[in-house]
C-alpha cells in the first residue's frame, strides 16, 4: 500500500502541467472589465450671486449650473441628485435657512435637468438638516461622455428684517446611482 501510494504521488508530479505559462509563437489573453453603476457631478457655478431687481423687496434670485454623468443598472437601477445647505448664511442677522427671522422666509429653488434626468417638481425649500431633491434617474440611465447639464434657480426671501451686508451660505450637491 505504501509503495502504491508513493508511485501514485510520483506519477502525479510527473504528469501535472507546470504552473508557469508556456512559451509559444503566439499568446492569447482575455481583457475583461466590469462596468458598474456610477455617477459624478460637477458644479460649474462656483459662486452663485443672488440679486434683486428694484428696491421694493423683491426676492433675491440666482442660478447654479452643474454637469452630471450617470450610469444606472439596466433593469433595477436608479439614481438621484440632491442638495443640502451645509453651511447656513453668515454672518448672523441676515437670511437664514435654519433659523429664518420670519417664518416663511426661505431659500427655495426650481430645477432644470436634461435627459435622462427628471427634474424636481419645484419650487422646493432647501434645508440644513436634510437632502432635498434636484433630479431623479430611472433604470438604464446613461449620460453622455461629456456629461449632461442641469441647474437650480434660487429664490431667497427679501425680508426687511435682514441687516444690510453680504451673506453667504454653502450648498452641497450629491449624485448617486445604483
Amino acid at each position, binding site marked *: 500500500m505504501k509503495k502504491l501510494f508513493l508511485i501514485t504521488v510520483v506519477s502525479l508530479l510527473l504528469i501535472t502541467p507546470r504552473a508557469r505559462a508556456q512559451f*509559444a509563437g503566439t499568446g492569447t489573453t482575455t481583457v475583461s472589465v466590469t462596468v458598474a453603476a456610477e455617477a459624478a457631478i460637477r458644479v460649474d457655478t462656483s459662486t452663485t450671486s443672488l440679486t434683486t431687481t428694484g428696491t421694493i423687496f423683491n426676492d433675491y434670485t440666482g442660478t447654479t449650473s452643474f454637469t452630471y454623468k450617470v450610469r444606472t443598472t439596466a433593469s433595477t*437601477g436608479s439614481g438621484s441628485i440632491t442638495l443640502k445647505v451645509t453651511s447656513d448664511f453668515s454672518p448672523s442677522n441676515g437670511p437664514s435657512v435654519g433659523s429664518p427671522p420670519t417664518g416663511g422666509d426661505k431659500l427655495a429653488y426650481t430645477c432644470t435637468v436634461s435627459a435622462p434626468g427628471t427634474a424636481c417638481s419645484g419650487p422646493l425649500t432647501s434645508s440644513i438638516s436634510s437632502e432635498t431633491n434636484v433630479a431623479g434617474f430611472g433604470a438604464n440611465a446613461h449620460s453622455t461622455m461629456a456629461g449632461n447639464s442641469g441647474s437650480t434657480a434660487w429664490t431667497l426671501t427679501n425680508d426687511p428684517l435682514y441687516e444690510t451686508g453680504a451673506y453667504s451660505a454653502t450648498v452641497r450637491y450629491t449624485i448617486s446611482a445604483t
Partner: protein
Amino acid sequence: MLLALKSPRGDTFGRAIVCRHRLGSSEGRKLKNQSARGIAYWGRWLAAILCAPVICISNTGSTTQNLSAQINPIGKLSVTAGIPLTTSATTFIGFSGTLPVSYRVRTTPGGGGAITMQATSDFAPAGGPSLSTGALPYTCGSASLGTSCSGAQTVSKTAQTPVLTVPGGVCTGGGGACSASDPNSVTVNFSLTNDPQFQTGAFAASLMFTIIAT
C-alpha cells in the same frame, strides 16, 4: 572485451567444499580434485576481473567526432490568460490594467524580431466598450531586450499593432552576447475609457500576441 569462462562443476563447488570432511578417503580425494578444479576456475574469474581495467586502459584510443548544429532564429512568448481592467473610483475614472509579456528570442545578425498584438474578438456582450471606437489604447513599458513601442497605441481588430522590436544578433539569457535575464519581459499598460454610455455588467475581449524572429 568479452571473456567467456566455463565452469567445470557449475554450482556444486560450494557443496563439495562443505562436504569434504564428512566423506571417506576415496570420495574425499575425488571431491578434493573437484575442489581444486573449482578453485582454479574461480581463480581465473578473479584474475580476469582484477585485470580487466588494465586491459581496457591499455586498449583505449582516441578519435575526433565533429558535431554541428544549425541554430535558427526563433521567438517564443507567454502572456497571462487574463488581465482585468479596473478603476479606482466610481466617478467615471478610466479603467486600467497592466499585462506582462514574457518572451525568448534569438535573431540573426542583420535580422530582427518583433512582438505585435491584435484583437481576435471585440468586447462582449454588446452594450459595453467596443474596440471599433478605439476604446482600448495602450502604452508599453520598458523591455529587458529590444525596444518597446513608443507613445500611445490603440488595440485594433483589423491590424497588428506594435509592442516590441528586437534588433538583429541578439538572444535571450545566458549573459555575454545575450541578455542577462531569461525570459525577457515587457509590459503593456491598457487604459479603457469609462463611458457613461456603457451598460453595466462584465465585458471581455481577446487579444493575440505574436512574436517573429529572423
